[in-house]
């Protein structure tokens, strides 16, 4: 039986059940606010968000693989494109861009023009250094670790 063709992020996003974007934004905001209240230190919150993301990522990756039918990426450039175009589209309904590649092709930036997590969000001065969307960083780290093992995540600027 020939393997099924890979599906586009758009096709998958259209086929899954979706939730109200504002509820999603509010829920994430509530999580961040609660973490700030409980942990007080911005660095601790960043770490916790990353850890939460990691726990999501290790589970999300199989969902991604099952729905998208992609085969193993040949190099990190392809992986980054896959995350930006298929992954973000499938789960957040937005496409990201990959840029700022370093000379070895081992490090890049994934940039979200439109990020549902930060709709309506303004960071106050008291939250300097907070990586509001750090959960995304953790998700990618967890997901990649399950398929390869050797990734270094980094923060995402909100």
């Amino acid at each position, binding site marked *: *039986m020939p393997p099924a063709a890979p599906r586009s992020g758009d096709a998958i996003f259209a086929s899954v059940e979706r939730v109200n974007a504002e509820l999603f934004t509010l829920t994430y905001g509530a999580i961040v606010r609660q973490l700030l209240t409980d942990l007080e230190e911005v660095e601790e919150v960043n770490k916790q968000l990353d850890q939460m993301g990691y726990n999501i990522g*290790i*589970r999300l990756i*199989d*969902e991604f*693989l*099952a*729905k998208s039918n992609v*085969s193993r990426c040949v190099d990190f450039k392809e992986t980054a494109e896959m995350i930006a175009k298929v992954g973000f589209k499938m789960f957040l309904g937005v496409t990201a861009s990959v840029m700022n590649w370093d000379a070895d092709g081992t490090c890049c930036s994934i940039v979200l023009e439109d990020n549902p997590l930060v709709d309506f969000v303004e960071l106050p001065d008291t939250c300097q250094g907070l990586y509001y969307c750090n959960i995304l960083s953790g998700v990618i780290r967890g997901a990649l670790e399950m*398929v390869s093992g050797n990734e270094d995540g980094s923060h995402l600027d909100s």
Partner: protein
Amino acid sequence: LSPTIGCSEIELLEADTFDLYCFQSLTGTKFFVVCEPGTQHMEALLKVVYELYTDYVLKNPFYEMKMPIRCELFDINLAQAVQKDRVALLGQ
């Protein structure tokens, strides 16, 4: 026929009294189906099982990764998928 050592993503072992199909995801999780020799469409069943796993096991926040699966919803849906398959095959 070589068995599971060096298993790539889809593998088949044909024995006298059974066939063994294996599906391995890119995360290394392996799914096996043991069936009557000559049973058709087991690759498709494995794909269905993989999707049930990503839904009822991985999305259950109380399931701990890599532990034995004790998720009732997974068992129920898995039984239904196998039953549907069995009915479809018998209907031919």
